[in-house]
């Protein structure tokens, strides 16, 4: 619950990571990159983040849950945090001088009620 400590810095750097990602490191979840040759592997890179919505959102989503169906705010929460996790993974790969990440896998775990850990990992490679 980030009620008292808004994690502004992390979200700002997360946005920065996404810009780097747009600038072009190739992320795929296949073992090979179609049309490219992998010349060197640089090891496993990973990125993770634990995020939660505020108490008000938890209450409204709890009310919505009585009726069932999709919980839109939690979907948004997981979307944002997954982008942040991928951004961190990409930043680690770039620091190793990789040009692509192959075989990306995602894992999710709920730490406590309303806080989810999103984990993304893959193999950093140099590809031509």
């Amino acid at each position, binding site marked *: 619950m980030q009620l008292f400590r808004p994690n502004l810095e992390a979200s700002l750097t997360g946005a920065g990571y996404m810009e780097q990602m747009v600038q072009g490191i190739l992320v*795929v979840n*296949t073992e090979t990159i*179609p*049309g490219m040759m992998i010349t060197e592997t640089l090891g496993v890179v990973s990125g993770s983040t634990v995020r939660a919505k505020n108490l008000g959102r938890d209450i409204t989503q709890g009310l919505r*849950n009585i*009726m069932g*169906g999709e919980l839109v705010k*939690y979907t948004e929460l997981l979307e944002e945090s*997954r982008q942040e996790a991928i951004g961190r993974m990409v930043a680690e790969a770039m620091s190793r001088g990789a040009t692509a990440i192959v075989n990306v896998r995602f894992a*999710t775990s709920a730490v406590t009620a309303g806080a989810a850990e999103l984990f993304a990992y893959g193999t950093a490679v140099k590809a031509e």
Partner: protein
Amino acid sequence: MADPPIVVLVLSVCILPFLLLAIFGILWSVAYPAMLIYAVLFSGQKLNEQIEDTTSREVSLRESLGRDPLTTVDGGYRTDITDCGVVWAGVVFGPSHWHLLIGKINNLIGGSIDIFQKVVSAGRAEAMQRLRENAVASGWDDVINVRIDTSDMAPQGSQSKVKAVEVFAYGTGVKYG
């Protein structure tokens, strides 16, 4: 007019949170049965509408493309791929409290609990349909190596009020040259 004595101030500050809590408790005890009755009457209908909506979107997208863009094959089946990138979609989906109650009663008897199967497969169909829509919106022709993860938003023993699963589908979008 004299200031109120300090004892009264301290007492009121101490009591105020409990008073608020009591008001919320009373409101909740009145409002929850009403919402539960609403859920009993309309949640099944809402679920059916959701399934119909997902199915009609899926059918119209398949008809416009002429095929299903998702494949679980690694590397795809064509060699003229020019561009690729990861694409994903997730949805958090939960049964209503009425469906939870049906599930609990069904659990006493045992056997297949059809209502949960219906809810989770509705969420999964929605996630896969969003993956198709995301891929089409990003300009990919196909999505290869699709993987689907399901994770519990309310793990055992977490005391969570929200009962839901997250369905997450991801794959590699490809563009044919």
